[in-house]
């Protein structure tokens, strides 16, 4: 896997022990300047909501775009989930704006 795979939002290499893959789509991907990343899952983070708060603490665009009042949706392992959804090492967690297809 190289960075271009991550930028495309396709993470095919198996996750290393303790890591999660995080994907960003649409406006979030554009404003954050990042389509995907792999990170060690801090032990204190057990839910999608806690992960969002963790990412928001990076500051700058992260603080703005992931602020609690922003309508950010989350999917865990490619299924729509709530902020209380549990996350585990090896999971794929995606953050994106409300969908606008159809």
């Amino acid at each position, binding site marked *: 896997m190289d960075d271009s795979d991550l930028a495309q939002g396709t993470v095919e290499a198996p996750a290393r022990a303790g890591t999660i893959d995080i994907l960003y789509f649409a406006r979030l991907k554009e404003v954050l300047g990042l389509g995907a990343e792999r990170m060690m899952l801090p032990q204190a983070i057990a839910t999608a909501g806690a992960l969002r708060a963790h990412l928001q603490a990076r500051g700058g665009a992260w603080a703005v775009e992931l602020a609690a009042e922003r309508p950010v949706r989350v999917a865990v392992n490619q299924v729509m989930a709530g902020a209380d959804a549990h996350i585990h090492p090896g999971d794929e967690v995606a953050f994106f704006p409300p969908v606008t*297809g159809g």
Partner: protein
Amino acid sequence: MPVRIQTEDFDVGAEIAALRHGDPAVGAIASFVGLVRDVNAGDRVSEITLEHYPGMTQKAVQEIVDEAKSRWNIVDALVIHRIGTLRPADQIVLVAVTGAHRGAAFAACEFVMDYLKTRAPFWKKEQTPAGSRWVDARSSDDVAADRWTG
């Protein structure tokens, strides 16, 4: 395949013919075709680009189709959703449902569209004279989808 995500255009007549497959048990076909408009929120739109979540989209739409099949007595259903860059008057999406009678076909078709609008991971970006912008989700779409719960 009952769910297709593709860049290519589609032929509604050919798709419906393939879906009904000459089955004499089918007494009704309901279909919806979504098109690109040349105006949104008061601004001219010259083109739109549809992004999606490749790993999730197919499964998410299939789940919606499966839910429709569990709720109504329909024979079959087809969803085609395009991605990539589209221009005004282009076709975006086709939902077609076959059934014995019109009631179930109409309802299932509308249900699939309403759920697709709020649960399938697609995002539209539109090009206007002032530049490009992401389309905001509409609360009316949530209201439409909520009709089917409870």
